[in-house]
């Protein structure tokens, strides 16, 4: 079974997910057990794979659907980076979701699609060719729709419609690009340094067009401007969904896809020869600044966080587009770092909403006194987002900056500086409100949880992820840290 591990990783969330659909609403213990077993098993399997790849093992599962079209799963460094993040955060989010959705209706439906969503994400991470990637990518689109619409309100339905509209068009573009690419290259495989080795120069124009199509298709999910419109709307979804959406599943799948296309389809060297990377970098930089500026003006906490995601995910794209080994490390670790930070922020936003009925930044006066641990986690993550040391975000920013200088693109520093200042401008006032202003006489909709500030199932995941934000930054040079993995991946791509 050892070489088929990737398949088992996919199945470890698919099977529980399918079983959960058949459970009755009141069988909550069984549902929790299925979820927990699935999440723990997946994490264990991923751990085994990481250990294996570290010791030189190769994992590869192939199944020929049509001649030349294979369903192929494998586990290289990049895949493991993303799978590791997804499976870890799935476990944490499951705990959170169980606490969050206690006593609310349609839990079987919710957890079923939740598992499918994770399955699709893991599939996206492990796919070994564009075809497999595309299948899981579309599965992700469809399994997320019910999660966004979950509450069933008019706003939720509208947001989900918009989401579906954007992502289906994106999927279609991606499909078009993939098919066109296949007619030119005859292969859809991912290979380090790309598959473009012996392409005729006459095809370069077409390859540029294909690149634009692929990036447009992926950019919808990665929320690159002007394709980001769905993301701030989709934040009507329940907090665990937003958390997963922004940190791991949808947005990350888009960013991950862009990294795959640049690194393993086109190859960094070939892409820079084509001249497609600079426009991509500029687009990413524009997205970074635009998202931050829009975030400044949002009073709704989750909307502010959503625009922050628009901005932060583009760090990954920027790191990839700078076309240098160190910047690539910066982009790749941000894949993990942004996930940890953003999931913490959304968990905390959910805690505030569930415990005190706080949805707006302007309602957060003095909330630090009422919910100190939640706000501590929020503070750590927010400072990390600004990029303050020793937190995770600083490591990303440092590598992006040094990488940009090394690649001779000093303008990126200006973008990073502006982005840090803007991040501070929309996060620090929140912290000021929460910690330094007196609390109001009554909270909008307070619930009591005994001595604790909120339910443990809500508090614990936020604290765990906040701790990870601190540790991934503080212990960046330890073995198996995201930084070490990202360095390992970058070395493979940029070896000459």
């Amino acid at each position: 079974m050892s070489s088929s591990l990737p398949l088992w990783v996919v199945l470890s969330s698919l099977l529980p997910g399918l079983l959960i659909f058949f459970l009755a609403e009141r069988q909550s213990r069984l549902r929790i057990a299925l979820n927990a077993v699935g999440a723990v098993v997946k994490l264990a399997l991923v751990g085994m794979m990481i250990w294996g790849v570290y010791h030189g093992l190769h994992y590869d599962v192939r199944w020929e659907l049509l001649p030349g079209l294979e369903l192929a799963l494998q586990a290289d460094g990049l895949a493991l980076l993303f799978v590791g993040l997804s499976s870890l955060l799935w476990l944490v989010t499951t705990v959170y979701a169980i606490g969050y959705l206690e006593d609310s209706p349609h839990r079987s439906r919710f957890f079923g699609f939740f598992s499918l969503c994770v399955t699709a994400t893991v599939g996206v991470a492990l796919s070994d060719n564009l075809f497999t990637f595309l299948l899981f990518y579309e599965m992700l689109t469809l399994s997320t729709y019910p999660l966004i619409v979950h509450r069933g309100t008019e706003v939720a339905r509208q947001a989900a419609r918009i989401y579906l509209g954007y992502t289906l068009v994106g999927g279609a573009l991606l499909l078009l690009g993939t098919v066109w690419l296949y007619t030119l290259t005859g292969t859809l495989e991912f290979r380090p340094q790309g598959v473009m080795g012996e392409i005729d120069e006459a095809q370069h124009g077409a390859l540029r067009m294909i690149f634009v199509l692929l990036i447009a298709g992926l950019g919808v999910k990665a929320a690159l401007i002007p394709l980001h419109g769905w993301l701030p709307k989709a934040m009507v979804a329940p907090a665990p969904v937003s958390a997963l959406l922004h940190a791991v599943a949808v947005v990350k799948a888009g960013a991950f896809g862009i990294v795959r296309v640049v690194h393993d389809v086109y190859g960094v060297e070939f892409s820079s020869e084509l001249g497609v990377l600079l426009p991509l970098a500029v687009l990413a930089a524009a997205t970074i600044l635009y998202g931050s500026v829009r975030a400044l003006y949002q009073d709704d906490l989750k909307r502010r966080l959503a625009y922050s995601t628009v901005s932060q995910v583009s760090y990954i794209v920027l790191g990839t587009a700078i076309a240098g080994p160190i910047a690539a490390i910066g982009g790749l670790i941000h894949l993990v770092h942004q996930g940890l930070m953003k999931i913490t922020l959304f968990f905390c936003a959910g805690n505030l909403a569930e415990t005190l009925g706080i949805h707006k930044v302007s309602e957060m006066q003095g909330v630090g006194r009422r919910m100190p641990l939640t706000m501590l986690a929020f503070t750590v993550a927010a400072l990390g987002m600004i990029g303050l040391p020793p937190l995770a975000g600083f490591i990303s920013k440092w590598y992006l900056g040094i990488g940009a200088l090394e690649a001779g693109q000093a303008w990126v520093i200006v973008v990073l500086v502006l982005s840090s200042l803007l991040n501070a401008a929309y996060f620090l006032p929140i912290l000021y409100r929460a910690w330094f202003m007196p609390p109001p006489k009554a909270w909008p909709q307070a619930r009591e949880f005994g001595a604790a500030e909120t339910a443990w199932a809500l508090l614990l995941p936020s604290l765990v992820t906040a701790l990870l934000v601190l540790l991934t930054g503080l212990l960046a040079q330890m073995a198996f840290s995201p930084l070490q993995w990202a360095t390992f991946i970058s070395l493979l791509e940029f070896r000459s």
Partner: protein
Amino acid sequence: MTVSGLWLLLAPATPLLLMLVWVLSPLRPRLGVLAPWAALPALLLALWPQEFAAASLPGVQLGTHLALDSIGRSLLLLTAVLWWVGGWYAWRMLGQQLTPGFALLFLLAMAGNFGVLTADDGISFYCWFALMSFAAYGMVLLHPTRQTRLAGRVYIALVLLGEVALLSALMLAAQGAAAMDFASLRAGIAESAHGELAVWLLLLGLGVKVGLPGLHFSLPLIYRAAPAPLAAILAGAMINAGLLGWLRLLPAGQVAMPGVAELVMALGMFAAFYGVVIGLLQRDPRVVLGYSSISQMGLVTMAIGWGLAAPQYWSALVLVVALYAVHHGLAKAALFIGLGLREYGPRAGRWQRTVAIGMLLPALALAGAPLTSGLLAKGLLKAQAETLALPLAQALAWVMPLSTVATTLLLARFFALLRHDQGAAQTRLVRGDLLLWGLLLLVPAFWVGSLSQPSWPSPWHGTAMWSALWPILLGLLFAGWLRHWLARREPAEVPPGDLGIWLYRLCLRVVVRSRGWRLEAWPWRISIGSVAGWHRLQAWLTRYRTEANGWRWAMMLMVLLILLLLWPGLAMWVGGSTAEAISVNLA
């Protein structure tokens, strides 16, 4: 890691570990009392007679290194003493107002400050520096009022500006450097194509802490906002973090950067007098001390400029600058604690008088009077300026006595502003509380003696004494005349934070307006806004008139001082460069 390395790590780690007490709810209310004691390991470390091995934690951050050289050690001693004494007085004076939440921020800032002094690589320096700067916000905002919030906002805005500038500088330095330790970073800057840019970014990023003109706005504001014993820590200990950063990161010993150097010297000279001029027009003694810090740091900035111009003098200058920082930090902190003793102490005339008389000692030291640490510090700075073979630097040697005149004037203003009716109705302070402060007043003499190097010229002979004394006497004379003259016309006040406050108001208006554009109900806003706006405009014009009056005063004094300054300076500069040009031609 060796035991001695672990010991080194303990200095910044103890405050962080003490934070864990917060978890134990019975001890939590006592955190404010316990907090100052977290400075003890750092104090012991600084006093320990033995050299410490550098420590490395390769897995932490991007590789962390700690070390303690003689500069770090002397500043660590000052810093540890001030955190301990300041914290102790804060507890004595403020008591239960020190909430556990405040204590956490206090400990974080303390850890950051010790970390800055023991750091031996750029990244951990930056990390500790950020920790210190952000956590110090809690000290500024211990009592949230309109005034302190304004101070906090200006402070944080400048801190952020400094952070990004410092980070960009470090990135530029790291790009050309082989490793992240200070020596490699300096070499990296020296060799980098963007070296000059990196130096400017360092000056900007760390200049926020030092109070470089244009970045100085927050100093007077936060010294007024923070309670006096905490202001002592801000003004005595934390201000030196920026200076230390310059000493550690500027490639001054390796390359000459004449263009940058002249501008830095000019900036320093400007600050030395600008601080005095604006300070004279203040009415709050704490703000006056803030402007005095700007002025004193201006002298140090000038010395940094000399180093940037003449690399061969850098290693000597570094020691002098560190000594000056220790001297200034101690004197400033003693003055602030004195203010606290008066403010929180009994109203009795005897207590108030005793403290005021005690405060004369650090004030005289700041002016550089004979038999004080100031004489040594200023004398050495002057001696350094005279040895430099630079026309501008020699002209600047003239600045020193003039700056003493100005400092004396400013401190005279400070004493004139001490209110007679001060003191608290109910006080926890007893006579014993004066003891520690008394020690703090006497320490500088021993300290500075222990720091002096055999190669330094002795400042204890008659000529040196006299050359230190006459500017003070002149300043006092001038102060007496000014007081007599001002008795009839009190000049208007320049708002504390001077130009920065105007800038801040401007920014606020722009931001508020841009927010207004986004509101959907904007026609409603305009109709409301235009009425309110009219009143605002009127109020603003009234305020402008009184403030403009203050500015006119400032301008007049400044022009006077510049004339005084330029007269000998210009003559020597022109003469010097002509002589240089001639000698070049002859050769």
